[in-house]
Every structure is written in structure tokens, then in C-alpha cells.
């Protein structure tokens, strides 16, 4: 592992973002739209429900954390897609850059963009709607960690899909977070789901985060062991996604797909 090569992947993304209004804007615009939309919705719900329940941390907090996961997914995939869009695979993969260094570079790029996004969301949500995560205490650390790891795993898996199925498979990547969200119980308890959906929720680490969040807001305590187990589960997803990417890359070298990527299918 050569850290300089990892830095090269991050530096490329930094150069692209620094010089491009159209790349910087989405980092802030969509999250700002989400914060404003859900912020006013929660304010309205609070007015309707009276003082019985505070929707701000339950709904706006959930939206913020889910947006953070989405930023993590997109942070990885957009860095990868930059190589797809600029037809740069041949240059990149014929260099001494290893697959692990490349993937780590994607992850580091995502850390930077998702952290910027998280900070912007926190500023907006707290200043406009008084959202505070103080009541979650230190448990917020595993919450963020689980969502970050699972977002990275989904991002790497999305990259593998695009590498396998060609540039047009980019459209598989964008809907991944919305596809997962109904099973993760972002806005409602997993208990309301039918049993087959609950079966899927059990293996999704974010579902433990959002369940724990609602438990704390209801005044009950959350076991650290549950959060630890979900962190481990998320880590397993990262390793599995890394394995899938490595396998797809290996197959792409065998079939010649990297060299003929625009053909979308080596067969």
C-alpha cells in the first residue's frame, strides 16, 4: 500500500471539485433542500401534535443521518464515475496503482465530501430548526460510524456494478440509498413492516441506528452491544463490497472489459 498513490486519487477529485461549480453545488443543494423541506414538515407536525411528541429529532434527525449515508455512497461512486466519464480506466489501471489503493482513494474522497455535507446539514438543521443531537450523547459516534461504513459499502458495491455492466449502469447507483431506506426503518419503526421486510431489516446495519435513535428519544436506554454488533455488521459489508469490487476488476482484466470499457460488455 503506497499512501502517495491513494493521495493521487483524492487529489484528482479535489482538483475536479475545486474547479467546478457544478460539482460543489450538489454537495450542498440537495441536503439544503432536504433540511428545509423536512424541517418545515416537522415544525408543522409539532404544531399539529402539540407538545406530546417532538418530531424534530425523530424525523429531521433521521433525514439528516440518512442524507449523510447517501453522501457517503455518492462520495465513493462519483469519484469512481469521474474515471468512467473521462474514459480514464486505461490510464489508471495500467499504472502501478493497486485495487486496494484505488478503493481506499475512493473512500478517502468520500470521507472529505460527506464530512463537508454533514457539517453543512448540522449547521442548517440546528440554526433553522433547533435540531440537537445532544440527547444521543456518545451513542452518536457509533450511529455515524455505522452509517458511514454502510454507505461506503454501498458505494463500493455500486462501483463494482458500473464496472461490470458499463457506463450506462450508472443509473443503478443513484437509486441505491432510496431502495434501501424502506427496509432500514429510517422514518418508522421496523415493527410496522411485514415480516418479509423485517427479515431484510435485520441484516441492514442502519436499521439498528434508527431503531436505537427512536428508543433514546422515547426515553429508554440502548445497549452498547447492539451498536457494537451493527458496527461489526457494517464492517463486514465493507469487506464484502471490497471483495466484490476486486473480483469484478479481476474478471474485467480477464475478459478485456477494462481495455474495451465503452463496449459495456466484453462478450
Amino acid at each position, binding site marked *: 500500500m503506497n499512501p502517495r*498513490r491513494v493521495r493521487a486519487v483524492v487529489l484528482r477529485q479535489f482538483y475536479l471539485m475545486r474547479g467546478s461549480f457544478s460539482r460543489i453545488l450538489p454537495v450542498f443543494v440537495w441536503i439544503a433542500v432536504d433540511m428545509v423541506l423536512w424541517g418545515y414538515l416537522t415544525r408543522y407536525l409539532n404544531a399539529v401534535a402539540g407538545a406530546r411528541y417532538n418530531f424534530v429529532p425523530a424525523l429531521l434527525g433521521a433525514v439528516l443521518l440518512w442524507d449523510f449515508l447517501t453522501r457517503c455512497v455518492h462520495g465513493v461512486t462519483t469519484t469512481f464515475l469521474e474515471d468512467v466519464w473521462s474514459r480514464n480506466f486505461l490510464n489508471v489501471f495500467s499504472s502501478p496503482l493497486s485495487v486496494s489503493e484505488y478503493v481506499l482513494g475512493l473512500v478517502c474522497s468520500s470521507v472529505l465530501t460527506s464530512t463537508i455535507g454533514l457539517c453543512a446539514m448540522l449547521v442548517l438543521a440546528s440554526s433553522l430548526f433547533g435540531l440537537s443531537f445532544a440527547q444521543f450523547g456518545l451513542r452518536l459516534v457509533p450511529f455515524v460510524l455505522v452509517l458511514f461504513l454502510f454507505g461506503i459499502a454501498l458505494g463500493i458495491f455500486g462501483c463494482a456494478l458500473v464496472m461490470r455492466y458499463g457506463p450506462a449502469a450508472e443509473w443503478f447507483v443513484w437509486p441505491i440509498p432510496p431502495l434501501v431506506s424502506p427496509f432500514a426503518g429510517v422514518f418508522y419503526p421496523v415493527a410496522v413492516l411485514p415480516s418479509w421486510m423485517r427479515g431484510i431489516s435485520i441484516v441492514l446495519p442502519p436499521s439498528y441506528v434508527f431503531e436505537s435513535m427512536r428508543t433514546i428519544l422515547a426515553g429508554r436506554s440502548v445497549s452498547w452491544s447492539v451498536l457494537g454488533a451493527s458496527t461489526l455488521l457494517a464492517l463486514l459489508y465493507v469487506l464484502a463490497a471490497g471483495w466484490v469490487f476486486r473480483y469484478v476488476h479481476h474478471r474485467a482484466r*480477464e475478459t478485456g472489459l477494462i481495455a474495451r470499457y465503452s463496449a459495456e460488455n466484453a462478450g
Partner: protein
Amino acid sequence: MRGHRGQLNGKGLAAPGVNGPGMSSMNADETSKAGALVVSGLCKRYGDRLAVDDVSFEVHPNEIVGLLGPNGAGKTTIINMVLGVLTPTRGRILIEGHDLISHRVSALERTNFAAVYAPLPGNLTVAQNLRVFGMLYDVPDLGARIDEVMRSYDLLGFRDTRCGVLSSGEQTRVCLAKATLNAPHLLLLDEPTASLDPATGREIRQKIREFAAQGTGGVLWTSHNMYEVEEVCDRVMFLSHGRILLEGDPRSLPREYNKATLEDLFVAVAREPLSLASQGEDGQL
């Protein structure tokens, strides 16, 4: 390396400088002395189609070797295998003695390439592209090296220009600057002068000749421009249907096969490879 006698290959007759089966047992030091690139028994099969069929050859330091052949002969497939982006079905590739499969990183650190179909990202400036690729190739003292290659390829005026807005000739110069950034011991050039005007093409050929003469690098060059091949290459190999059919000095090879020019020989390889093969065998026998 000039003055090679044309040799038939791919029919059981090994050409000079081409290793036989014993080559694979050479240790790293021996192969390093032997060649910038040693390819032995290379095969690539796509389903039922054999794109590259038992190809063996060598590129020595300071040598420019032309890999010629009609479209679909297997040139780019060989280049892609040497670049590590295509896994051979069989065979071995050693770059300065470093096995591309088992020591991928150290082998690729010694290699670089430029191809007309692989421009650098157009949304980065020339300096940004060179910095990113310099880091990928772990080039020491990168800032000074970038200035050096920019000066060498007359790119200083384009330092902060995005590559996408450069002309074809300027983009080719940027690709060559990237390709020589790590002072590679093996430089692969896949039709680097295609689509260039004659003046720019001549400049590029001069740069490549200087590269091969000054350093310790060998060059593997593919082109469809026989005039430039004759001007630049020390040795050429003609590929047909994935096999090396002929090999020799581009200036004397046409005469050996009763052709007036290298282009005539190229056309003959493309249209009647079997008759050339038998002609070559007769010459050998």
C-alpha cells in the same frame, strides 16, 4: 540493433533475440540484462477465438521495436497484456525481469504508455494531470520532473490549460509527457502519431528517438504509417492472426521478401500471410 536478418516466427522457427521455452526459467537478474521487455509464449483466447497465439519477443534497452499488422491482428491485445489491463490466457511477461503477474506493481512502475485512444482526462489541466499521474507512478522530486517534461514537450505555455481544449497534437504531447514522466524502462506507444499533421508527427518521432537514445528505455511502437516505422524503428515484427509472421530491420525486410517498400510488405502480410510464411520458410531452409 539495426541490421537484423528478417526471420520467420510463429511456425516453429525462433527469431534472433526471441527467447525459446528455456527463457521462463531465467532469474530476474538475467532477464533484466536480457531485455526491457521479455514476452514468452503469450496467448489470449476470447471464447473460441484465439486473438494472440503463442507470441514471443523481446525489446532491448535503447531499442525501438515496431509491432505492425492489419487491424485485428492482435497488436493492441498484446499492448494491453503488457500494460496489465488484460490477463493473458497463457504465457509470461517480464518487464526488466519483473513478472507482470506476480510482481505487478514493480513491473508497472517501470512501464508507461501513450495511445491515441487513451487521452488524459480533459477536465484537468496539464499540470494537474501530470501531478496526479506522477504520484500514481511515485515519481521522486515530482515538481522538478513535471517542469522537465513540460519543457521537453513544449508544454510550459499550457500548464494551466485543461487538456480537453488542447488540439490533437498538443494532447498527444501531453500524453507523451505523462508517458515519459517516470522515465520508464519500457515505453508502449499505440499509434501515438495517428491524426497528427506531418510536422507534429515528425516532432513526436524525434522526441521518441531521443527518449530511446538517451535513457535505458526500450520502446514498443505500433503504427500504420510505414514511412514513420521505417524512419524510427530499429526492428519490426509483423503480426497476422495473432502470430508474429515476420521480423527484421524495416529498411531491409521488404527486399528480403521481394517487395519494393515496407508498405507493400504490410499489404502482403494483410492479404496473403500464408504465401509470405511459406516464402520465409523456404528462405530459412
